[in-house]
């Protein structure tokens, strides 16, 4: 195990940022901490790095007790959300910083530093920018300088706080792929914080979904997306519609329609909310046994999928995703009455509260 966290709790005054968090990250793994703002994901990252001391609990890195060790003893690479580049230093000096501040006995010679920095800049494809200043770089370039600077001290692990948060969509996608390749190439252990579920699902080996200072679920991207452990994870990962339903004996009713529920566990008369992902709803023109009636309110047809906003006859709104082909086939129009069938409906235990 590369990083082990045991029962960490962290409070800021009366706000509990982390509550009894335990987590293990394997050597060479890339883990995403995913959650809404205020969920404690950045605090957890800072506790691992040592920037923030935990109130209780332990942090063990590569088998070594690090709980009371200072930031510099932990030898972690940290990429800050807004990069925190030294604005008065050139790109070269930024990357060289971690080497230059070493105690004299451990400090490499100037020639070695130069070679090391230029190698790193080559790695992040910025070798032509060595003499520039941070203010002269684009967001994506700054991000890569921050990464090279973090790697310069040859850290055992890389911690990234919202690494793509300040970048525009296109650069973000490119850098994401690149970072994953770099991670594999260097054989590092990486943890990154994000609030973007797409980013977490695409990039990470495992996703840690956090909410209100707790871990809701840990699992592979497939796991957390297809088998969300609870309502929160279900809602947070991807779009989801929820409906109020009614229990009548063994049957579950959505409005007047009896529906099949794939995961019925925990559904009782008190708890009457079910979840359906938009792509698991199907629109048809003919009634079926478990189809419920709905009216089309809006159609967004730009993009690979067509998103149709519907109003179910019981008054609830939902969105449906269907392919362009299917959309043309059905020839849907605004305000038309249609039938909707759910391919998969999920329910969660009632004791859960958001």
């Amino acid at each position: 195990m590369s990083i082990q966290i045991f029962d960490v709790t962290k409070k800021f005054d009366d706000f509990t940022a982390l509550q009894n968090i335990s987590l293990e990250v394997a050597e060479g793994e890339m883990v995403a901490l995913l959650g809404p703002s205020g969920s404690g994901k950045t605090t957890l990252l800072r506790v691992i790095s040592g920037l923030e001391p935990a109130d209780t609990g332990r942090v063990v890195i590569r088998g070594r007790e690090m709980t009371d060790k200072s930031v510099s003893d932990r030898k972690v690479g940290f990429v800050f959300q807004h990069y925190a580049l030294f604005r008065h230093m050139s790109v070269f000096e930024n990357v060289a910083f971690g080497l230059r501040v070493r105690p004299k006995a451990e400090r490499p010679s100037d020639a070695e530093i130069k070679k090391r920095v230029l190698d790193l800049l080559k790695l992040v494809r910025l070798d032509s920018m060595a003499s520039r200043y941070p203010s002269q770089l684009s967001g994506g370039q700054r991000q890569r300088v921050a990464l090279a600077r973090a790697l310069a001290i040859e850290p055992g692990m890389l911690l990234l706080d919202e690494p793509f948060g300040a970048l525009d969509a296109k650069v973000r996608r490119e850098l994401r792929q690149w970072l994953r390749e770099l991670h594999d190439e260097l054989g590092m252990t990486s943890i990154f914080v994000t609030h973007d579920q797409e980013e977490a699902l695409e990039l990470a080996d495992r996703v840690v979904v956090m909410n209100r200072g707790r871990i809701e679920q840990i699992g592979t991207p497939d796991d957390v997306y297809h088998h969300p452990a609870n309502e929160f994870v279900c809602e947070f990962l991807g779009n989801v519609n929820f409906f109020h339903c009614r229990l009548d004996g063994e049957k579950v009713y959505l409005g007047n329609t009896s529906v099949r529920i794939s995961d019925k566990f925990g559904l009782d008369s008190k708890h009457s909310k079910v979840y359906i992902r938009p792509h698991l709803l199907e629109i048809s023109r003919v009634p079926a046994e478990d189809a419920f009636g709905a009216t089309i309110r809006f159609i967004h047809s730009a993009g690979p999928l067509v998103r149709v906003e519907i109003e179910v006859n019981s008054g609830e709104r939902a969105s449906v995703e269907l392919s362009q082909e299917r959309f043309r086939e059905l020839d849907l129009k605004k305000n038309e009455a249609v039938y909707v069938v759910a391919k998969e409906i999920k329910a969660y235990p009632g004791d859960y509260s958001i």
Partner: protein
Amino acid sequence: MAGAIGLRNEAKNLGRRAAVTEPPFVRAILITAALVFLAVFLMLPIFVVLVSALTKGVQFYFQAFTEPAAVAALKLTLLVAAITVPLNVLFGLAAAWSIAKFDFMGKKFLTTLIDLPFSVSPVISGLIYVLVFGAQGVLGPWLQAHDIRIIFAVPGIVLATIFVTFPFVARELIPLMQAQGNEEENAAIILGANGWQTFWRVTLPNIKWGLLYGVILCNARAMGEFGAVSVVSGHIRGLTNTLPLHVEILYNEYSFTAAFAVSSLLMMLAFVTLALKHFIEWHHLRESLANH
């Protein structure tokens, strides 16, 4: 720096302003009023000082600086500035650092306290030291018993000047350091730098212009302070007179030409200060423009 930001906005809006500006005659009146005001209340006195200083010829003008009392006053003024400015740089840095980078009890109170010398009359700033260290003061008898002279001596002048000039450096640095936050410092520490390296290599370069600006204002005030120093100095010629006090003494003795000559020295200091201030603002503006 507020001035620098204002300048930038002005430059940006220049093109658009034409459409919404006042009619030409209003502009002419406003500009004339401002210029006349400046001429009467600022330029005229400066002109008078220079002319009066030179009425008895260049030789007399220079003699006014070279007589022993003037030399002593100049030396004392430089000495006070040389002690006060470094100390206030230290205090200012410490205060700004703790206010900008840490959270602690009484932080608001400390911030308010730093402004105190600005809001208190300089006379009172001097008087508080007389009340504490003077012969009738709280510590007076003890000091006398140990033969330590503070009031009517150089230490008193230094103390009063420190008090009066304390806010300049801190006030300049606090907003600057608050705006910069401590992300860069965190980054430095995580890269293995110790506290000292972090300060010299990361913090100081980031605040150097603000610091210099504060130092210059602090220095100008330290050399020019009259009220507080006047109370604690005792006006002993050749011993406890600073340049501003020396000017007053000369004036009271009807040596107008000499008084104006020495004044012109202080005025020169003001011009140098303004020029430096302007240069720093310009430099800072250029750097901050390059950063956006």
